[in-house]
C-alpha cells in the first residue's frame, strides 16, 4: 500500500527528530551541573575493557558528588555522559560530535588510538579538554591539539622500556616479534623491535596475526623453527591468552613478553596455566605502589568486580579534570584548560603533570610477571626509560 511508504518516511523523520532528549538542567542557584563525557567501546570484542573505562569515571563522579565539591562558590553536581564508540573511528566521530553538542565540560576517552584520532580533532575544534586513559599511540599528542592529554606513558616509552628489559635484564639474544596488525599492536611491536635491535638483539622472526583470530599455531610453529629466546607480542589479552596456551602445547619454551594490552586478568583466565611466567608491562606504577592504589582497588572491586586494566587511570582523569576546574574556579573549558595544562597533583595512579604535548611527564612503566596465577610486579622503569 502506498500509505506504508509514507509511514516509513514519517517514522524515519520522527526518529531523527524525536531522539533529542537533551534534558538541560541548569541546577539551582547554589549548584552547578558539570557534565563529563566518557567514550569507549561498550559493545564488541573489547567491551570488557570499555566497560572498565566507563566504571572508573562512574566511581569518581559518585565520590565527587558525595563530597561537598566546590567549583567557584557553588557545589558541583557531576554527571557522566557515556557513549559507545564501538572501537570504530566513524562512530567515534559521531559520538564526539554528540558529546560536543551536549556541552560536556571535559571528555575521558577514547580507549583505542584509532578512535581517539578523529575524535581528538572534534574536541580540539570545540575547545573541550580530553584526557585519554589508555590510547597509547605516540603520535596522537604530536598533532598539535592543545586539548588532548594522556594519563599514561605512550608506546614509545613502553616499547623502549620493554626492549630494555628484554635485552638487558632478561638477556634475550634472539627475539621473535608478533603483532596483531592494529594501530596499537603494530605501533608497540615496531617500537619494541627497533629499540631491541639497536640494543643488540637479533630479530629472528617477524610474524603477524589479526585481532580476531584464535588460531596461532601456524605462526608459532614458524617461530619455533627459528628458536628464539623470547617472543614479543603486540596486541590484546584476548589473543595473548590463547597464544601462550598454544605455545605450550607446541612445546615452545621461549619467554613470552607483551605490553599493556595483555596485562589483564582476562589474559590469565584465557591462557590458564600456560600463562605462568609470562611477562607484560603497563604504563604507570603498579597498583600497590600507586599512592591511592589499594584504596581504589577495594572501592572499585566492591562495586564493579575486578579491575580489567585502565579504570584507575580513567578514575584519575576525572579527578584531575575536577581538580583543574576547582582551581580555576569554573567548569568552562576555556577557563580551566590552561590550569589543566600546568597542573601538578598527586593522583591515585601517581604524580600527574603534563608536558607541552600533553603527554604525562615522568611516566613510569611497570613490568609484571605472572606468578602463581597472579600478576606480580617485577620491575619499575622510571623516567630513565625511553624518551
Amino acid at each position, binding site marked *: 500500500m502506498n500509505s506504508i511508504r509514507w509511514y516509513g518516511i514519517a517514522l524515519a523523520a520522527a526518529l531523527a527528530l524525536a531522539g533529542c*532528549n537533551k534534558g538541560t538542567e541548569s541546577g539551582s542557584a547554589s549548584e552547578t551541573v558539570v557534565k563529563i563525557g566518557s567514550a569507549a567501546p561498550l559493545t564488541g570484542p573489547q567491551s570488557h575493557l570499555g566497560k572498565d573505562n566507563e566504571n572508573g569515571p562512574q566511581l569518581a563522579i559518585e565520590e565527587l558528588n558525595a563530597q561537598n565539591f566546590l567549583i567557584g562558590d557553588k557545589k558541583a553536581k557531576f554527571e557522566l555522559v557515556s*557513549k559507545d564508540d564501538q572501537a570504530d573511528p566513524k562512530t567515534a566521530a*559521531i559520538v564526539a560530535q554528540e558529546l560536543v553538542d551536549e556541552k560536556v565540560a571535559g571528555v575521558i576517552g577514547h580507549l583505542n588510538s584509532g578512535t581517539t584520532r578523529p575524535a581528538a580533532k572534534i574536541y580540539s575544534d570545540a575547545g573541550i579538554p580530553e584526557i585519554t586513559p589508555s590510547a597509547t599511540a605516540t603520535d596522537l599528542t604530536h598533532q598539535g591539539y592543545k586539548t588532548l592529554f594522556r594519563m599514561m606513558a605512550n608506546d614509545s616509552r613502553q616499547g623502549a622500556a620493554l626492549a630494555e628489559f628484554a635485552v638487558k635484564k632478561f638477556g634475550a639474544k634472539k627475539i621473535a616479534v608478533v603483532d596483531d596488525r592494529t594501530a596499537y599492536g603494530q605501533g608497540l611491536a615496531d617500537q619494541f623491535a627497533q629499540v631491541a635491535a639497536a640494543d643488540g638483539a637479533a630479530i629472528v622472526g617477524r610474524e603477524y596475526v589479526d585481532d580476531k583470530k584464535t588460531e596461532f599455531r601456524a605462526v608459532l610453529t614458524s617461530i619455533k623453527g627459528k628458536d628464539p629466546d623470547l617472543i614479543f607480542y603486540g596486541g590484546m589479552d584476548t589473543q595473548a591468552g590463547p597464544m601462550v596456551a598454544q605455545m605450550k602445547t607446541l612445546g615452545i619454551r621461549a619467554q613470552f613478553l607483551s605490553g599493556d594490552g595483555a596485562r589483564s586478568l582476562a589474559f590469565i583466565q584465557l591462557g590458564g596455566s600456560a600463562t605462568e611466567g609470562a611477562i607484560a608491562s603497563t604504563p604507570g606504577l603498579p597498583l600497590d605502589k600507586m599512592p591511592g592504589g589499594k584504596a581504589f582497588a577495594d572501592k572499585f572491586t566492591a562495586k564493579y568486580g575486578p579491575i580489567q586494566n585502565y579504570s584507575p587511570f580513567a578514575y584519575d582523569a576525572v579527578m584531575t579534570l575536577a581538580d583543574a576546574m576547582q582551581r580555576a574556579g569554573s567548569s568552562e573549558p576555556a577557563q580551566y584548560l590552561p590550569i589543566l595544562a600546568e597542573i601538578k597533583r598527586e593522583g591515585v595512579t601517581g604524580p600527574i603533570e603534563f608536558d607541552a604535548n600533553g603527554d604525562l611527564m615522568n611516566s613510569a612503566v611497570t613490568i609484571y610477571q605472572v606468578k602463581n596465577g597472579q600478576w606480580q610486579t617485577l620491575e619499575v622503569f622510571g623516567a630513565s626509560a625511553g624518551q
Partner: protein
Amino acid sequence: MSDLIARWQVLKRDPRLVWSAYAALALLLALLPFAVGAAAGNAWVRILASVLLYTMLALGLNIVVGFAGLLDLGYVAFYAVGAYCYALLASPHFGLHLPAWLLLPAGALVAGVFGALLGAPTLRLRGDYLAIVTLGFGEIIRIFLNNLNAPINITNGPQGVDRIDPVQFGALSLAQSHQVLGVELPSIYNYYYLFLLLVLAVIFISLRLENSRIGRAWVAIREDETAAAAMGINTRNIKLLAFAMGASFGGLSGGLFAGFQGFVSPESFTLIESVMILCMVVLGGMGHIPGVVLGAVLLVILPEALRYTGDLQNAVFGRVFVDPSDLRLLLFGLALVGVMLLRPSGLWPSPIRKREFAATE
C-alpha cells in the same frame, strides 16, 4: 478507497503538482540541517551527512545487485579505494596536496577500474559463489591497505592516514564557516550541501542508466542470463560495466569521506560495512532507486536513534531496565528481521517487482 486511488493516479501526472512537490522537497532538504541542528544538535547534522554518503554507496551497490542482479559482498573495497586515493594524495603522508576537484573524479575512476578488475574473474560464477569471491576481494583489499607499510610505506598500515586536507574548491574551504546571504553556515553544513548535490547527481545518473539500453541489458541479465545472451547482449561487457559503474559511485563516496573525516584507516572498511550496504539495498527495495535511498536513510539513522533507548526507558519507566548499549544492536537486528518478514520485496519495491512477487504467492 479505489476512488481515491484513481484520483491519486490522475494527480500524480499533473505536471504542476509534480513540480511543486519537487520544489517543496528541495526546500525541505535545503533547510533540513538548520531544523535538525536546532532541534538535536550538530551531531545529527553529521549523521545526516553520513546518511548522504551511505545513500551514494547504496545507489552504487544498487547498480550491481539491484539492476544487474550480481550479489556483491565486497563492495566496501571500492569505498576504501576512493578514500585512500584521496587520503594519500591530499595529506602530509606523501606531502602531496592535490585539489579536490581533481581527486574526487580520479578516485571514482580508479575505483571503477578496480571494479572491472575485480569483476573479471567472476564472470562465470553464479549466485553464492560470486558472493564469496566478491567477499574475498573486499577482504583482500582491506588486508593490503592494512599491510602495505613495509618494505615501502604506501598506505601507512594500521595507523591510517591522518590530517587529510579538507575538501576545498579554490579558496572556498568546506572546513570553515561561511556567511551566505547573512546566514552562518558552519563547516558541517557545507559538507552536507556538497554531499546533497552529489547524491542528487548520482540519483540522476542512476535514473538515466536505468532507462537506457544498458540498464535494460542489466535487467535482462538479472532475470535470465542465457536468454539475454541469446538476444545478442554481450553479457561479459555488460557485467563488467555494472561492476565498474557501481564501483565508481563507491569511489566518489570514499573520496568525500576522506576529506570529511580527515582520517582514514583500514578498520573503517570491514566486511560488516559491505553487509550493511547490502542490507540497505535489499531492505529498501532492490533495484528501485527511491527504495534504496529510503533503505540507506533508515539503516543509518536507526542505530543512532536507538542510542536514546536509555532516555526512553527513563521517560516511560522512570529508570533504566536494560543498558542501552545492550539494546541498541539487538533492536537493530530485530528491525532487520521484522522488516523482511513483513515486506519481503523491500520497503519500497519497484511496482513491477511487487506485482511479480504477488503473482508467485
